[in-house]
């Protein structure tokens, strides 16, 4: 196959934009799985839920999907806090989180997906916004705004979260709970409360990631499953809980996936993410920038 330079360049550019979006998708899991040790495999389902929330607000009130996502942040935060509360009472306290906790999130994944199918059907839904159809051109490279806007906000989100974690009191407490839970308890802080806040933040990011997703492509309930592998691949590759590692891994995966689907066809793209994940787990489980 002849590989033209222009095609390669625009595939790489598209991959970088895609990677920025993947960072927003993954950051929630990076917090819950990487820092809190909660294997929330239902996270992609909450992202789809976020997409539908943006869709409803967009379709019925004409709100910008990203503005809609910001309005939904408190709702998702509360949902996350509630889920953590159940998880803590039922599994963490019993010391039962490994097996049954996983099954719990697996069940939540299903309930969310099927409930969305029952309410909205399996039709693809999309949103309208001023920037969705516009594309900027720089020579051979196309920059569609529907990719560029999520990319930019997602990078801002990552920077904001990093600042929050390293500078604010709560943020540093979250890092402390991920490093040494007992020591935090000895400092008279309540690890459960801090984990609840952190988990709630992780679910709140799903509202934003969901809005990005539905701006980038039409959404139907079951596409969340495609993201399970991507999310965990990026999270593991980035070295669990490290944000700079996460962004690097997300961009890498975005580029590899975009190049693969440009030159070999989109039906191979899912295998890339999962293949990446399997290889990472087998060869370098500590991730790119692992401790």
């Amino acid at each position, binding site marked *: 196959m002849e590989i033209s330079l222009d095609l390669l360049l625009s595939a790489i550019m598209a991959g970088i934009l895609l990677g920025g979006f993947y960072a927003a998708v993954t950051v929630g899991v990076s917090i819950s799985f990487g820092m809190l040790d909660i294997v929330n495999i239902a996270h992609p389902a909450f992202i789809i839920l976020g997409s539908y929330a943006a869709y409803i607000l967009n379709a019925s009130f004409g709100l910008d999907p990203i503005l809609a996502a910001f309005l939904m942040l408190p709702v998702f935060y509360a949902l996350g806090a509630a889920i953590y509360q159940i998880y803590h009472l039922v599994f963490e306290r019993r010391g039962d989180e490994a097996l049954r906790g996983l099954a719990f999130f697996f069940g*939540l994944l299903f309930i969310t997906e099927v409930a969305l199918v029952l309410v909205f059907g399996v039709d693809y839904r999309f949103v309208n916004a001023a920037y969705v159809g516009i594309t900027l051109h720089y020579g051979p490279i196309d920059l569609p705004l529907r990719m560029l806007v999520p990319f930019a906000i997602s990078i801002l989100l990552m920077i904001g979260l990093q600042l929050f974690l390293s500078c604010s009191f709560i943020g540093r407490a979250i890092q402390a709970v991920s490093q040494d839970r007992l020591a935090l308890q000895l400092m008279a802080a309540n690890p459960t409360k801090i984990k609840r806040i952190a988990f709630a933040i992780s679910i709140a990011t799903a509202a934003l990631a969901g809005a990005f997703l539905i701006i980038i492509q039409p959404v139907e309930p079951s596409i969340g499953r495609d993201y399970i592998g991507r999310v965990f691949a990026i999270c593991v590759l980035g070295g669990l809980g490290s944000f700079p590692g996460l962004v690097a891994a997300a961009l890498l995966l975005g580029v590899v996936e975009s190049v693969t689907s440009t030159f070999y066809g989109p039906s191979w793209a899912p295998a890339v993410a999962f293949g990446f994940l399997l290889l990472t787990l087998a060869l370098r489980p500590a991730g790119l920038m692992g401790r």
Partner: protein
Amino acid sequence: MGRMRNSTFWAAAFAVGAVFFGLSLLVPNDYYFFAGYVVLQYIVLATAWNILGGYTGYVNFGSAAFFALGAYSTVVMYKLLPLPVPLLVVIGGVISGAVGLGMGYLTLRLRGAFFSIATLALAVVVQTLITNWDFVGGSRGAYIIRPAHAPLLGNYIQYLFLVMLVLAVIAVGIARSIERSRLGFGFSSIRDDEQAAEAAGVPTLRLKLVATTLSGALMGMAGAPLPYYVTYLDPASGFNLAYAVNSIAMPLIGGMTSWIGPIIGAVFLGTIQQLATVTISSALNLLIVGALLVLFVVIAPNGIVGLVESRLRARRR
């Protein structure tokens, strides 16, 4: 039931199977064979999942991949050299068992959650490979034409039912004999405290590899007759997520610590789903499974078996 001898168990299991089969022959309607086949298939899947998940504590989300590998190995053999179904079952088992071994070798040195995530990943990789493989029909799927006459019985669906019944008896028998063997004690030491087991000299990695291989092989065996059952197989149905959910939900709901749990779960959930599919809809059907799964892990973590045991213990006091 606790102190039954192995030979007695096998005799009893085959007797139960034979009686079950004899009774179903009295039913004049083929639908019962179709429905019964599905429930038996789930008994095999749930038992296979439980050998890894229940006994060693490693959660496999990729049951659908092992199951579909068995089914697709039958499709390949059908195109190359059609063999009788029992041989296909053996071939499907060998292939899925080999994949299970490879999978375990790649990931079992990591913490449990990584193994689970890797199995999810495996399911998608295998599905993508099959979807892009034209020889087995790719995304269009493959048609299987059943022979006009089935061996032994004549009626093909009854024949498949019988094959699956024998497979279910074998799978349950294997699970039960593991429970009472050194292997089973090794497995449960891994589940309870892997580091302590390792320190006490239990060869944990080797035992885990035995579990993934055995579990994968049984799942593949359950999938091997599928193409003859449905006569048309495409990746979306072979890799249907329903298999992954059910093979987790059934042992969890039935009870994971003994061989009887997956059977109870499979019969309970399998029957509910057959009824729901016929009377309501198949989307709702998955909602029921998901809701029951969450309900049971929250309220009754030891499943139906656990509920019954604690009831009995309370009465004895």
